[in-house]
């Protein structure tokens, strides 16, 4: 028994070591491909990782599907964008305001929406996402409508403006790593266990005293807040946003990242986000064929790696990263 209790703290230590290793890797990565275009792509890998983790907390841990997460991402981006342009607020102030507003919205909507189950929940979240998209499109005076909102300032910290890929890389990965650590801690805690319990058997969890409904709403709001943060960072990195980036297709892409990476795994979300962000780069040379390769790859991944990348890594390294390494020299 003593051994088992200790083995618990050993797993904790292993998790921590893994995380530190991963962080170090992320932090030295820019030295390896200094400057080039890849830096820019890696910035987006960071943003997408954050979003994939947000959705994974909801889908992989609590078992609740959302087909509208791009909406929360967009809402964060727009609130940040509007506050910093029209109202010239400091981005560091706009970001938490956006997160808070999105969190409140998700909390309020969460109660009725998470009462729904299965495909009804899928439909309702999809509807929610589409409504948000339409609002971005139609409130032209506020959002600039379909032509987008430009002139969003970069983030600044202690006199340094985050206006280059390398700087943005560190800014965004700083946040992403924090979100990762946050989520890893959460997953291995009392709350994380309760979430997974709700996923496996909601009624059994309730009988044991877990307030499943409240917990689902909490995690929904948390997921929305993380998405909103990613949205704010996206807005301040891109300095331009338009509704097209926050549509239904992106919600589906996020879902794909989470599933391809591995449900219920934080590092899986990173792998999924990295693969789906890098894939178009790898397929760039294939011109119009890329959509076919992309679709075919999704099908093959689910068929041959149904547990997601995180459960098939050795295979993955052989299959995916080798060809990419070759293309880099071009």
């Amino acid at each position: 028994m003593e051994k088992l209790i200790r083995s618990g703290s050993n797993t904790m230590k292993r998790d921590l070591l893994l995380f530190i290793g991963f962080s170090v890797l992320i932090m030295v990565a820019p030295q390896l491909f200094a400057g080039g275009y890849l830096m820019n792509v890696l910035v987006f890998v960071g943003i997408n990782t954050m979003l994939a983790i947000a959705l994974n907390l909801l889908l992989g841990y609590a078992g609740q599907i959302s087909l509208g997460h791009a909406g929360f991402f967009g809402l964060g981006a727009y609130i940040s964008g509007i506050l910093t342009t029209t109202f010239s607020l400091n981005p560091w102030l706009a970001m938490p305001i956006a997160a808070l507003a999105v969190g409140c919205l998700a909390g309020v909507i969460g109660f009725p929406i998470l009462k729904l189950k299965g495909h009804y929940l899928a439909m309702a979240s999809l509807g929610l996402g589409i409504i948000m998209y339409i609002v971005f499109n139609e409130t032209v005076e506020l959002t600039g409508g379909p032509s987008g909102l430009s002139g969003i300032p970069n983030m600044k910290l202690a006199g340094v403006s985050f206006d280059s890929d390398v700087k943005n890389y560190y800014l965004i990965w700083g946040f992403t790593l924090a979100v990762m650590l946050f989520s890893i801690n959460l997953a291995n805690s009392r709350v994380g266990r309760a979430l997974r319990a709700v996923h496996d058997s909601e009624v059994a969890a309730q009988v044991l005293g877990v307030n499943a409904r409240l917990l689902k709403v909490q995690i929904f709001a948390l997921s929305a807040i993380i998405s909103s943060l990613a949205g704010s960072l996206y807005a301040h990195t891109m300095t331009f946003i338009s509704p097209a980036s926050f549509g239904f297709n992106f919600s589906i892409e996020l879902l794909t990242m989470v599933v391809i990476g591995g449900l219920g795994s934080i590092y899986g979300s990173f792998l999924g986000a990295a693969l789906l962000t890098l894939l178009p780069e790898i397929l760039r040379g294939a011109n119009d064929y890329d959509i076919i390769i992309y679709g075919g790859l999704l099908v093959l991944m689910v068929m041959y790696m149904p547990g997601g990348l995180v459960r098939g890594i050795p295979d993955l390294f052989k299959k995916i990263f080798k060809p990419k390494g070759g293309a880099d020299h071009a």
Partner: protein
Amino acid sequence: MLEVSGITQIFGGVTALDSVSFAISAGDITGVIGPNGAGKTTLFNIITGIYRQTAGTVHLEGKNVTGLPPEKLARLAMVRTFQNIELFGGMTVLENVMVGMHTKSSAGLLACAFKMPWSISEERRIREGAMKWLEFTGIVDLADHVAGSLPFGKGRLLEIARALAVEPRIILMDEPAAGLNSQETVGLAQLIKQIRDTGITVVLVEHDMELVMDICDRIIVLNLGTKLAEGTPREIQESSAVIAAYLGDDD
């Protein structure tokens, strides 16, 4: 301890329970028996807040708990198990029991995610507590196994350990012996008595008459949604109404 009165449940015009009333006293093992379709599981679902009944009230330790959701009832120290064990299949055996400690711990979402010192020490306490219950039910050696891969009999024990982790004063078991072989059933009888001996009131729905007659202090018989009889095992065995109900039924 537990008092139900006038429980009536109507599903789309079909009366599943018709004004059922009884009281269960603390420290007893009470069996609820009856032929298939008598309404036993429905009754359990109502008492534990999973179904909302058409009429009637439930009192727990003198407190009106009618219509409270299951998670509130757990905090009032009532817990149950399920006929087809409802394990958290993707989690380890230990983690399953740790979920049972949910009401006995308090770290919130943010405290957990930011690893506040108190949440770390609480986590340790949860782990130790959970191990204690695994020992109690004799499956401590399986702690690191994934719950979904357990054989049925071990799963049953895990479900009971998990329920005990809530530290209930009353536990309701829905057919705990279903699917167990005779050896496992003997072990189960032993365990249920042990649970009662720690001061927990036990109510069980069961088909295995031998088990019921062996361990129950009192028995309630349901038939076609109404209470047919109530009494000690001996009284029930001698009741002509009960015998008629069972013989009139194929089951």
